[in-house]
């Protein structure tokens, strides 16, 4: 039975490079994916593109391709990545130039386009925004990017046309993996059960090290060998859609049914309906079996037909967040930090700073879990000998956000005793909102560059 091997070389935009190099060198791969695009990343990339039309692709593209391109040729590993971010076309041109500089010939680079619908959003002004109790027209002046989650079609087309490297923008993460699977096995796009299996495999791989023991270790409970040199995963996939997750021999980390279960459920809501542009996967009958050291066989995913609508992820200018922090130590640290927090709160009210939402945290006491869970975990707050006060607030105007940090810093000369290490900052917040549009509105286009 035909089997292919797909590796996962990045789980987020800034991920490590050397585990990907190790995968390409020693993983006997057919394909490697690099998943480098979070929801907000593309909105930020779109702003870069507005400043410079040649930019807007992943900032580490050149850094990664410097190592990846020679291995792509030497080891005959095809590369599929969403590092195109807001500008896949430019990314493809950059890769072509880099290949030429390295004397690499015969490399075909595909740019998958069609996800960027920023110029076309006028027709959706009456659509409901998922995250807000609003229509799109209510936030239209703030919107800075609009990208549709596209499916695997563009990747399949690129591979059919002989692409060695496929660069996309806002593609659904599992589609980076489903693309080569569909191309290699020629599954019918209406074979919902198989598509469901392919989506699951993509979902398992998309976070790279998160399935090989990354973000898993808990000493004494979940031990992971040599986490410092974590190896990234390989999926061995057969034409029936059955998969074994493994990693390169000798790399750090671990692949067990436990690591695979954590990743399977990660960022999933209804386990019978994981919606992607290519289909709706159902994980409710999935089973896992440890069939060897660092080898887990996963079976039983199914699926349902693809949705009629596609999700559009829009970045919009939202608000400002101002923050300030100060530390208190020794006996009475919590009491002094609490007094400091009360002072800052009263000062902001007294001086008329306009704040939409406000929060005071005592780091080391309740900053992660608020009071109920913190009380259950820490019986006596007064025993804490180091507490960091953190004050944060959301504002519509930058100046109001600045004043939050200023009031914390003013505690140096006006607050309780012994405060130290004040910091402050203001961030402009680009948030994400979504609408759903008809699938027929989207046309995928694939352009090719050849070195």
């Amino acid at each position, binding site marked *: 039975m035909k089997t292919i091997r797909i590796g996962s070389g990045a789980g987020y935009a800034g991920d490590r490079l050397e585990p990907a190099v190790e995968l390409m060198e020693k993983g006997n791969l057919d394909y490697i994916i690099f998943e480098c695009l979070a929801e907000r990343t593309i909105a930020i990339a779109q702003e870069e593109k507005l400043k410079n039309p040649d930019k807007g692709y992943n900032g580490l593209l050149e850094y990664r391709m410097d190592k990846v391109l020679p291995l792509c040729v030497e080891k005959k590993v095809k590369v599929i990545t969403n590092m195109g971010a807001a500008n896949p076309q430019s990314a493809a041109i950059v890769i072509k130039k880099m290949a030429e500089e390295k004397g690499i010939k015969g490399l075909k680079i595909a740019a998958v386009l069609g996800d960027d619908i920023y110029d076309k959003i006028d027709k959706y002004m009456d659509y409901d925004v998922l995250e807000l109790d609003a229509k799109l027209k209510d936030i239209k002046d703030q919107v800075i990017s609009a990208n549709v989650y596209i499916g695997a079609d563009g990747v399949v087309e690129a591979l059919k046309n002989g692409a060695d490297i496929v660069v996309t923008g806002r593609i659904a993460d599992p589609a980076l993996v489903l693309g080569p699977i569909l191309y290699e096995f020629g599954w019918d796009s209406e074979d919902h059960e198989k598509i469901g299996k392919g989506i699951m495999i993509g979902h398992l791989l998309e976070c790279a090290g998160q399935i090989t023991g990354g973000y898993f270790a808990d000493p004494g409970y979940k031990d992971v060998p040599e986490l410092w040199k974590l190896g990234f995963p390989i999926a061995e996939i057969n034409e029936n859609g059955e998969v074994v997750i493994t990693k390169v021999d000798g790399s750090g980390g671990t692949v067990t049914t436990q690591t695979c279960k954590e990743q399977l*459920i990660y960022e999933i809501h*209804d386990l019978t309906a994981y919606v992607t542009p290519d289909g709706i996967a159902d994980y409710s009958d999935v089973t896992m079996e440890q069939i060897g050291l660092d080898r887990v066989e996963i079976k039983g995913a199914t699926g349902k037909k693809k949705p009629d609508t596609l999700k559009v992820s829009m970045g919009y200018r939202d608000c400002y*967040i101002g923050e300030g922090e100060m530390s208190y130590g020794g006996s009475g640290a919590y009491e002094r930090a609490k007094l400091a927090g009360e002072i800052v709160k009263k000062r902001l009210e007294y001086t008329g700073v306009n704040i939409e939402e406000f929060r005071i*945290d005592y780091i080391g006491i309740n900053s992660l879990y608020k009071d109920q*869970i913190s009380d259950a*975990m820490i019986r006596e707050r007064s025993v804490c000998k180091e507490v960091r006060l953190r004050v944060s607030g*959301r504002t519509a105007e930058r100046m109001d956000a600045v004043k939050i940090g200023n009031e914390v810093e003013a505690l140096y000369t006006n607050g309780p005793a012994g405060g130290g290490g004040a910091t402050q900052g203001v961030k402009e917040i680009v948030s994400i909102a979504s609408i759903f549009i008809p699938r027929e509105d989207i046309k995928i286009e694939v352009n090719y560059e050849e070195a």
Partner: protein
Amino acid sequence: MKLREIAHSRTGDKGNISNVSLIVFNEEDYRLIEEKVTTKVVKEWFKDIVHGEVKRYELPKLGALNFVMDKALGGGVTRSLALDKHGKSLSAALLEMEI
């Protein structure tokens, strides 16, 4: 007994919704968590943090539950004022629960 003794967990985030898995180390403990870790006790445990509905999905074949908690992330990763904007630390909080 704390849940940590018998299960592990990971949190994911989508918008203002957090999902927290609960996976038993030994499959024979699945019935125990299925019985004890109801949406009611989870909602009560997270009441300071989670302001929406808690739903539970069951995966008996994997010995796992998945809790999907609405309005749990202070408006979502981008606009949350929380130190842990993704709610990544919520998994460890669930494991602190006594059953």
